[in-house]
């Protein structure tokens, strides 16, 4: 089934936040922010801005009736700066006026007098200063200390991996208006309507039942609107409440990029030990996560980094430690993969450098260490229905890995200017919020007397196709045509206390709740039908009642009419909580994930060794969707995720200067993939299984995992560079921009800054 929104999308009739028809008298607002990354505010002069015609009000922290606090996990983030500024772009206040243009001109006239304080952008420096968001955490398994002795080869080094701007094409925004009785309505472009509701209530000093949050859809989220859509929604609500007028905020792109956090940059130290047979015996890693100026979701992101520090490999002795470091960057936040990609990238880097030093293809090491059924991960979960080896083998076989390798070797032998590189990228990604408490959802279903059905859940549609999947669930459950089902907006009055739509779990959690709701209505309907038709077993199929295996005269509409006339409820509100999951943070052990998603990709790249430019040639992958309930949607997630992952590790370069100012602050300086920069070919195969019980309709979550195939792009390019410049010891510092590639192509030898240290004697291999 094609995405149910597609027809409206192509006609331009889908309604996004900025498309809501303005209510008469609507005012517009724009935040104004810190022009420096760390400073004490001495004085703010609003007068020149207030004096401008069209400016209605300017709000700062002193105008907040409730708490000036929007922090989710840790209460460390004010809505408007207090006495101190902690990052460049931190909102200080909100200008409200009769037009957006007026507000933007007015805010330029606001004078902020401040005294600068030292700026820290380096997470390691923050860690040295003990400037941490939360205490560090360590995941331990086996005994690394003892294991080093058994290793034939030990390598250690440092890896830098930069952040990533979400670049949802629809920027952040919100529109709020006052309702009677001191209540407020907020239209928000958020993945987390409940977070917006809770925070707005606290800031406005209202009980949550006076705040209604409605989300129609998002023009992309990717995690960037999980926590960070909240501030704008709360600001709009604050202004609407204060002025008793509708107030709308749409951030311009540069403001959006400057004021919001991104994927976390990590700086990590690794030590990896291998046996003679290339088995990874020990892995030790210390992650320094650049959290930015406030906690936001960083502690949770950090946790997922630890969960995924060994990717799809089984390593018997692991010690993984992570520090969440407070710096003067915008608070970094959720981004597709949620710390998992960084954790995986570090171990892949360790393997790549071991492979370079040992002069074997990295995939020889990767393959020997893939996890198997029954392996226990460092976090204590025993892997079941494990498919790491299976997807790898299908991928290598079906796409003929050895032939690709041979072709590349031949190409490289005869081509002085262009070199090709190959990488294999396995993935294993755990599905569930790592915070067990968040793994539940609700669904509300009404069947109307004409037989039409409306569904509300806590899931937010942002292009991932969750509404399409939910519609499939309801239509299938009731045995009716999908035309009868409508998916409603996500609204806190209809569905309360939701978890954000995140962690790839939206369709699973909300879909399972929806199944329960449908089934309850269905069982009442069946009972009514059974009585009426004097039948034992009732089924519904193709809009008809099937009684004891016979298609009856009664159709869906008649059945609904019958039930209504018998005063049977045609509505249901159901709740679902993922079973069997738990995690003990004290021991850092448990069973945090409902299941895992696996897959393997082969990625090839070609580098122009004269100019340092490159193309990702081909990606061929085998992915585990379980039993896909919607191939067009799932394949779309795979392609889109893959390309986003490739972008992160190749073109997309976040640049802050030493004063903490974002330099890559527009689409002209921050480049995401365009149509020409994506792989020439993407071939997707599915690993066929019966699917997983805890996945909706046995169709596994697909939002995040495919992003991590993109890691292979880095290593494919690296291998091509090595083919041109075999003697250089190449540091790993993602993204691999054409600049870094060119510098590496012409880097002389190992020399001065030896990044990878080979600590043990090198011996003959196998």
């Amino acid at each position, binding site marked *: 089934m094609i995405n149910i929104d597609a027809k409206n*999308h192509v006609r331009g009739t889908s309604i*996004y936040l900025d498309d809501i028809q303005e209510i008469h008298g609507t005012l517009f607002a724009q935040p104004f922010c810190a022009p420096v990354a760390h400073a004490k505010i001495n004085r703010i002069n609003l007068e020149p801005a207030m004096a401008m015609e069209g400016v209605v009000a300017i709000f700062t922290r002193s105008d907040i009736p409730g708490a000036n606090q929007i922090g989710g996990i840790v209460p460390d983030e004010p809505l408007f700066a207090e006495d101190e500024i902690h990052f460049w772009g931190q909102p200080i206040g909100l200008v409200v006026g009769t037009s957006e*243009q007026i507000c933007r001109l007015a805010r330029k006239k606001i004078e902020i007098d401040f005294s600068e304080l030292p700026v820290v952008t380096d997470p390691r420096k923050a860690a040295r200063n003990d400037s941490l968001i939360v205490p560090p955490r360590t995941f331990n398994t086996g005994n690394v200390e003892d294991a080093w002795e058994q290793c034939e080869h030990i390598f250690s080094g440092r890896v830098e991996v930069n952040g990533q701007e979400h670049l949802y*094409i629809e920027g952040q925004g919100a529109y709020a208006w006052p309702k009677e009785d001191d209540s407020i309505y907020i239209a928000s472009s958020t993945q987390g309507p409940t977070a917006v509701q809770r925070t707005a209530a606290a800031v406005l000093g209202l009980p949550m039942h006076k705040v209604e949050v409605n989300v129609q859809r998002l023009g992309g989220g990717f995690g960037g609107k999980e926590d960070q859509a909240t501030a704008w929604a709360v600001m709009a609500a604050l202004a609407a409440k204060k002025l008793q007028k509708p107030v709308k905020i*749409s951030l311009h792109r540069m403001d959006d990029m400057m004021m919001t956090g991104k994927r976390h940059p990590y700086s990590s130290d690794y030590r990896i030990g291998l046996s003679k047979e290339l088995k990874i015996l020990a892995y030790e890693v210390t992650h320094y996560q650049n959290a930015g100026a406030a906690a936001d979701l960083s502690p949770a992101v950090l946790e997922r980094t630890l969960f995924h520090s060994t990717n799809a490999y089984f390593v018997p002795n692991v010690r993984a430690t992570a520090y969440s470091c407070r710096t003067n960057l915008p608070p970094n936040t959720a981004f597709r993969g949620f710390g998992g990609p960084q954790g995986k990238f570090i171990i892949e880097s360790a393997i790549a450098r071991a492979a370079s030093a040992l002069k074997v293809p990295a995939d020889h090491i990767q393959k020997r260490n893939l996890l198997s059924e029954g392996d226990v991960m460092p976090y204590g979960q025993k892997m079941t229905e494990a498919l790491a080896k299976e997807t790898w083998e299908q991928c290598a076989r079906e796409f003929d890995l050895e032939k690709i390798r041979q072709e590349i070797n031949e190409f490289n032998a005869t081509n002085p200017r262009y070199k090709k590189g190959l990488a294999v990228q396995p993935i294993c990604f755990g599905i569930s919020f790592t915070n067990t408490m968040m793994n539940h959802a609700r669904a509300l279903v009404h069947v109307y007397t004409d037989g039409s059905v409306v569904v509300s859940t806590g899931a937010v549609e942002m292009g991932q196709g969750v509404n399409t999947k939910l519609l499939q669930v309801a239509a299938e459950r009731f045995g009716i045509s999908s035309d009868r089902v409508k998916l409603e907006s996500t609204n806190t009055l209809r569905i309360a206390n939701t978890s954000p739509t995140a962690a790839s779990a939206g369709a699973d959690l909300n879909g399972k709740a929806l199944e329960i709701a449908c089934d309850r209505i269905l069982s009442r309907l069946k009972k009514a039908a059974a009585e009426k038709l004097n039948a034992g077993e009732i089924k519904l199929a193709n809009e008809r009642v099937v009684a004891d295996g016979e298609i009856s005269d009664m159709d869906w509409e008649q059945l609904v009419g019958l039930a209504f006339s018998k005063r049977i409820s045609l509505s249901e509100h159901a709740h679902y909580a993922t079973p069997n999951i738990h995690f003990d943070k004290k021991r850092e052990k448990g069973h945090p994930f409902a299941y895992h998603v696996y897959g393997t990709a082969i990625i090839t790249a070609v580098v122009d060794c004269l100019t340092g430019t490159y193309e990702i040639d081909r990606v061929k992958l085998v992915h585990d969707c379980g039993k896909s309930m919607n191939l067009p949607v799932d394949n779309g997630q795979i392609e889109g995720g893959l390309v986003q992952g490739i972008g992160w590790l190749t073109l997309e370069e976040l640049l802050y200067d030493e004063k903490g100012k974002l330099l890559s602050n527009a689409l002209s300086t921050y480049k995401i*993939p365009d149509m020409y920069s994506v792989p020439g070919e993407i071939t997707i195969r599915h690993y066929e299984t019966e699917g997983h019980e805890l996945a909706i309709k046995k169709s596994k979550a697909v939002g995040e995992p495919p992003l991590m195939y993109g890691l292979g792009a880095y290593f494919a390019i690296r291998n091509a560079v090595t083919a041109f410049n075999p003697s250089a010891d190449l540091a790993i510092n993602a993204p691999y921009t*054409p600049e870094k590639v060119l510098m590496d192509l012409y880097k002389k030898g190992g020399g001065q800054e030896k990044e990878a240290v080979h600590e043990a004697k090198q011996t003959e291999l196998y």
Partner: protein
Amino acid sequence: MLHFVLNDREVKTAANPATTLLDFIRYDANLRGTKIGCREGDCGACTVLLGSVENGEIRYENCTSCLTPLANAHGRHVVTVEGLNMSELNRAQEAMVSHSGTQCGFCTPGFVVSLCGYALNPDTSLSRTAKDAVDGNICRCTGYKSIERAADQLQEELDNLGEAKTVDKLIDKRFIPAYFRDIPQLLAQIERHAFKHRGKQPVGGGTDLYVQKHDEMPFMEVAFPFKHQNGTRIWKEGDRCHMAPLCTASDMMKAPFLNESIPNWYDYMKLVSSNPIRNTGTVAGNLVNASPIGDLTAMLLALNAEITLKDPGDQERTIPLRSFYLDYKKLSKTPEELISRTSFDIPTTGKFNFEKVCKRKYLDIASVNAAALLEEKNGVIFKASFSVGGVSPIPLYLHKTSEYVKGRELTERTILEAAEVLQSEISPISDARGSAEYKRLLASQLFKAHFLNLFPSQIKMSELV
């Protein structure tokens, strides 16, 4: 009074001519299908079509409405996604739906508009494929493959139409709605009274101004000194190419005589911005903007172009482009002088090459760009002019390097020695487009690339590293 056709309706408006077409469409005309993604011409969410009558025929081009001053819509047909809707889906829409070319949908109207514009544009010989038509559209969700498949399908359907893709045929086959038939008539009525607006700040296409002075432009006294319709914007006299003030990068890209004389001309020009930006950004604007990294500037420097400057008293003077740039954004012209013509000799025997490296190959600003015009005979280079961008405060003509190469043998040694001279002429700085060290290395590499590309049988890569 501005007068144009918006979808199927005539619009007469006293709205501020310096406001963007995007704001007019969304907030004055209340058509919300056109989206805002960046307001910088870089995402294509705001794409609309502009149709103009040229030589009796109506031609449609896509443009980014976020950078288009409303004034530039005067006398034209503005088409938004709403203006492409019919009761059923049109062909481009259908292709996008059936290949799942839309996820969150925010970029989608822009893609649909670009694809329909391609279907409408009779000049398919140079745009090549439907895929190239969406080079200015960015999507963050799909990874593009599904959109590519949709574009391929549309291409196939267009190919099936046969040679003459008349408007009637396009309407008949559901590529565009029926009202397109009536547009030429509507436009013909507007032609007669041209729009005049005088102010201090002259605007060409607006693609630099509306990025640099985004908040201020709507409040500025702007001038649109050039008449938009008709007239030839690029032409050839003997072996000389001339360009009028409103000659766009697209005009230059598609000029048949340039494509005939300069191998790979189309591919070089494709490295410049994107379709919608090339369709609106002018050559003169690129020269006056004086960005050290201007692509057209770099090309025209190597091509030894001349510019003619005209003052308000209609006095004209012609100077070599090489002497136009004095210092960072300082030009040898008065603020009132306008470029009335740009001209250069079309290379006949000389070989031209253009190189550009950025983070992303297309729709990106160069870290370093470089152009060369070389003429060789019997193994000796007797004419050489090189330019390079991104390594100096001004778009740089490489005087010394060009002089050095002239008269020398075409050998790897000459190239390596000349690269040393080049290094003495440049002074790159570190910024978001790369470190100074990188740009130095890259400038030399691109210099070598000229020779490798132009003389592949004489010059070996292995001798140049």
